[in-house]
């Protein structure tokens, strides 16, 4: 049979399954609702938004900057035109005339200071079409170049004069730089002077167009040869015919451009960065690019081309050699008007975020969520175990209490605080009390009934044996003392060491202290939980039985065996040793009838007693002596090896029996006479009945021949015939 589970185990498993099912259900619902994918999609959307906002800010700032530059250009053009007119020269000749140039430089510096104040730029410049200081040098261009290291502040004192006459520095009380000079030198190689040449080229090519069409953004370059990469935007200075005689421009150095226009405070993810590069179809070209900082410089290589995989409107996926898979959000920047000859430069703002970092939030949430579920499950399981333990503790305590309860203990259940359980324990207590009472009553009744009965119980899972008072009394033990199983085995052995033959479950027990032998009936019954036994003192009954059995076997008058006993005993002897020789002697008193008639039955009885005593002679040699009826005695001798040995015994008896007499009254005596017949075993017969018949026949023959003699059955053929004829009849 399957072992039943404890209440605690059942409750624990049940509640634990509920907890586990709940956790699994939560995980499945998270998976089914695709919460984490939605988080990733949201992150991508946020990235796209951030890039879009940054692009809008840039476009707005750039637009305003271009507008400001245009306004300042118009103002300066007016100033320079009037200066040229005053000096009666063309504007393209301004640089050639010292006085006009000095005035032009100061006018230019005013415009540049205004530009620096109005815009978030690090420098502004005007470059003329030739050099005033070095007129012969075709590469030299008179310039006014002002720098502002703190574009956040409108502090003119922080400006520095990079190019231009000292008068400007004195005018504005600004410092000259280490590289201060008068001219800017054209660098024909590597597009080194594009910021000057390109806008002038555009003004010539698209003469008459609106001024914005000629605006040109340069790629980052070190214009002042001071290790500072700058980006410039230039517009041409045009005379009334639309001929260019110089440019005006603004400069943004890369550190400031990065800090102000591509701030990483925008970037929400680790290892993400902005870059401005050129996008064509699904390719991002890095022939030149504006990095937002160290990360962009580290992970992007000049000249490389990145193939983009489109994910959505403005979002792409690509792979960077040193960063791996990245998301990329692209937004075109409006830096040129649509009809600009430079519009193919296509500045695109790209925000790169490593794929893993974009999904970091969802990964963290996923991780934390799963951990939370795991921890919650674990805590809930622990809680379940604890609660079940607390809940079942009192019940288990009750069970344990009852299990270890001795039958002699008084039951006292502690309250559990659970009504049903407490009701149950009260009922058990009541039941037990009534059982105890019943038991006590039974014991008392037994005690009062004087029945010497006791019982014991040996339980498999108990170290002790339960005994009733009678057994304590029997074994001379203190009533109620604890008897171990080992001790009980010793006692039990004493009790059952003398079993009585032919009487199962009856054992003789010698009570040495009381110096008496008791007869005990001990019966045991096995049960699944142990052994139960009953011990009953049957001494009186047993002895009475024994006595009754004796009465049945013996002749009341002579105390010799009666015929029934004789037949049984002879059978036993023959059965025990059938190979040995025996003799059955049938004796009949010759004068019993006469004595009875003459002297009364008392004397007759005495005659019979006396004769019996004489025949007891054979008892000394193991003979069975019996009185089978009135005056008939039968003696059976067995266990001899020859008939002679028996004859010798008979001869010995004859010697003793001869002359035996019985006293009648005070003086007279009468001889005791008897006739006997002998039949040999196995010669004459091998069965009791046969022997009785043969010996009886021989005795009859003896009586017929001569009273008082012994006749052998083998000596009488007549007797045989008589017997045969009798049998035939």
């Amino acid at each position: 049979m399957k072992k039943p589970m404890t209440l605690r185990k059942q409750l624990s498993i049940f509640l634990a399954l509920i907890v586990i099912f709940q956790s699994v259900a939560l995980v499945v619902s998270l998976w089914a609702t695709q919460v984490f994918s939605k988080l990733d999609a949201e992150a991508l959307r946020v990235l796209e938004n951030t890039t879009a906002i940054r692009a809008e800010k840039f476009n707005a700032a750039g637009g305003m900057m271009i507008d400001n530059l245009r306004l300042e250009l118009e103002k300066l053009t007016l100033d320079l035109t009037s200066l040229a007119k005053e000096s009666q020269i063309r504007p393209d000749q301004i640089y050639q005339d010292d006085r006009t140039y000095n005035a032009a430089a100061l006018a230019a510096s005013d415009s540049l200071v205004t530009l620096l104040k109005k815009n978030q730029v690090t420098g502004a410049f005007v470059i003329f079409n030739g050099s005033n200081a070095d007129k012969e040098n075709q590469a030299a261009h008179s310039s006014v170049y002002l720098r502002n290291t703190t574009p956040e502040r409108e502090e003119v004192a922080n400006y520095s004069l990079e190019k231009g006459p000292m008068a400007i520095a004195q005018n504005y009380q600004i410092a000259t730089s280490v590289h201060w000079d008068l001219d800017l030198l054209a660098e024909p190689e590597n597009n080194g002077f594009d910021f000057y040449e390109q806008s002038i080229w555009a003004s010539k090519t698209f003469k008459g167009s609106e001024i914005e069409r000629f605006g040109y953004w340069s790629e980052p370059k070190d214009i002042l040869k001071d290790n500072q990469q700058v980006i410039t935007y230039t517009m041409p200075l045009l005379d009334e015919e639309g001929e260019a005689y110089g440019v005006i421009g603004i400069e943004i150095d890369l550190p400031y451009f990065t800090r102000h226009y591509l701030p990483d405070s925008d970037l929400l993810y680790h290892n993400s960065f902005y870059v401005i590069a050129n996008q064509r179809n699904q390719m991002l070209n890095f022939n030149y690019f504006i990095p937002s900082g160290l990360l962009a410089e580290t992970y992007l290589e000049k000249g490389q081309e990145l193939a983009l995989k489109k994910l959505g409107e403005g979002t792409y996926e690509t792979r960077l050699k040193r960063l791996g898979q990245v998301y990329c959000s692209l937004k075109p920047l409006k830096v040129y008007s649509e009809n600009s000859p430079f519009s193919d430069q296509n500045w695109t703002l790209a925000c790169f975020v490593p794929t893993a970092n974009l999904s970091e939030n969802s990964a963290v949430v996923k991780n934390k969520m799963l951990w939370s579920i795991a921890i919650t499950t674990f805590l809930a399981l622990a809680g379940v175990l604890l609660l079940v333990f607390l809940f079942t503790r009192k019940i288990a305590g009750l069970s344990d209490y009852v299990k270890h309860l001795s039958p002699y203990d008084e039951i006292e259940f502690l309250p559990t605080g659970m009504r049903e359980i407490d009701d149950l324990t009260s009922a058990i207590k009541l039941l037990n009390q009534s059982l105890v009472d019943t038991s006590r009553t039974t014991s008392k009744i037994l005690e009062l009934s004087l029945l010497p009965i006791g019982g014991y119980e040996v339980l498999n899972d108990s170290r002790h044996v339960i005994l009733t008072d009678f057994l304590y009394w029997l074994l001379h033990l203190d009533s109620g003392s604890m008897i171990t199983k080992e001790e009980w085995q010793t006692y039990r052995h004493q009790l059952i060491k003398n079993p009585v033959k032919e009487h199962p479950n009856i054992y003789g027990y010698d009570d040495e202290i009381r110096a008496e032998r008791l007869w005990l009936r001990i019966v045991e019954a096995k049960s699944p939980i142990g052994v139960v036994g009953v011990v009953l003192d049957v001494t009186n009954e047993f002895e009475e039985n024994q006595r009754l059995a004796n009465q049945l076997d013996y002749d009341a008058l002579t105390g010799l065996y009666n015929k029934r006993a004789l037949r049984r005993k002879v059978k036993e002897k023959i059965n025990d040793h059938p190979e040995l020789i025996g003799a059955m002697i049938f004796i009949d008193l010759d004068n019993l009838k006469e004595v009875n008639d003459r002297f009364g039955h008392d004397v007759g009885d005495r005659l019979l007693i006396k004769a019996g005593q004489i025949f007891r002679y054979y008892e000394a040699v193991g003979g069975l002596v019996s009185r089978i009826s009135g005056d008939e005695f039968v003696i059976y001798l067995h266990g001899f090896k020859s008939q002679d040995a028996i004859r010798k015994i008979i001869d010995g008896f004859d010697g003793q029996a001869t002359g035996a007499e019985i006293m009648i009254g005070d003086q007279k005596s009468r001889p005791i006479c008897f006739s006997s017949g002998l039949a040999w075993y196995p010669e004459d017969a091998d069965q009791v009945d046969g022997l009785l018949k043969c010996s009886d026949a021989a005795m009859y023959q003896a009586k017929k021949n001569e009273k008082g003699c012994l006749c052998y059955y083998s000596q009488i053929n007549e007797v045989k015939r008589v017997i045969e004829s009798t049998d035939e009849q």
Partner: protein
Amino acid sequence: MKKQIKGIKLIALVLMLLFLLSACSGGGKTLLDPKDPVSITLWHYYTGDTKIAFETAVKSFNKNLGAESGVLVRPLAKGSLVELEKALSDSAKGLINAEPMPDLFSCYPDKALELDNLGKLADLQAYFSKQEQELYRDDFLQVSSFDRERLLNIPIAKSTELLYINATTWNEFVDETAFEADQLASWEGLYQGARAYYQWTDAKTPEVPWDGQSLVGIDSLANFIIISNKQLGVEVSNAKEGAAVLNQAALRRIFDLYNGGMSLGYFNAIGKFRSDDVKSGELSAYLGSSSGAAYFPRWIEKNNQQYPIEFLALPYPVFEGGKACAVSQGAGMSVSKSDPKREAGSSVFIKWFTDPDQNVPFAMTSGYLPVQEEAYTSALFKTALSALSSGDEGEQNVAAVYGISLKQIKESDTYAPSPFEGSYDLRVILEKSLIETSLANRDQVAIYQQEGLTEEAILGAMKEDQYFEKWLDRIHHELDALEIPYRDE
């Protein structure tokens, strides 16, 4: 039982010592995590080439050690030193519209002390071990260590001051007037030289009176007043007393010299820096920082034309009878009190930047002196110096300045006043009052000139007590207004 308690106490003591040791020597290094870099905002006042050199160095730090140790420094030029200091004060005081305090910033020791009094500075003792502090030149670090307990400012680059001369013009003057260049070793000699130069140039246009040219200008008047006092045996900015010591005799000599020179046009100050005045030909000499060596022009501009000039540098002049002494100055860097991670990150940058490997190339962009003792003996320094000497004209000028600066720093008494509460304002008061008083007196001189007074007579008038006393009264008044303690002697 007693033995047990003793054992437990011993273990506790050992654990505590281990903890303290690790706290002292660890310098918070363990707080930094390359995976989660701490972003450090750095405010500085460098401009032009120095700014570019500094920001290039920062970029290199971010790319290398910064990336490895988890520190990302974001430099921000805050304009001039005055603007930087104002921005720092505003931030420290939490004024409306003020930016939050930067994590790390350029700062002079006196400003550092002022900010520390507002509870805004981190004590760098926790981040610089004794061994690390010993790497710095004693005289450079000393001034940053307040009360010998708190370390509030680590020197970054030092400079001294010297006399720069347009040798082309000067030699012409000397040739014609037989004036000895040796005389420029003293203030009195310089004054006389400037007067002679004025007269010499004035004489070139006899038809125009009083149109002589100024010879010399002084970039830092505060340094001039403090160092001159020191040469005359007075510590005007006296940290020991925590007060200004106004020695009238010394101040009188200083005032008479400067006021006389300025009011009569022997000395001048036109552009933002005196080097610019040399570039424009307004001056032929100036007293300025060795760190401005690169700014000394190779040519001057007159009427939009360039004229090449020679370069000459001489030691800082000394008052006759005074003790040779030149300033030792240079902003260091201080760290704002924030969290241990930011403070540790800032300290990592300072240590890296002041290491000779970085400090020497940075210093050499413009005549600064490196701050660690080892730098001066390093092969790197020597190689860089010899490279400068054999470089272009500008670099040769810088190399020449190094010759004098090193001599001045190593041999003569360089002096950097220790800060005390109010010492920063004292500098401003001294400088501003002297320049404004002198400029005001120039107007008086113009009146005298128009009245036809001779140069001697005007000079005599300028030495009247009233002018000096006016200046002194102004100083007293302004010190009182700011409750800066002072003592007259």
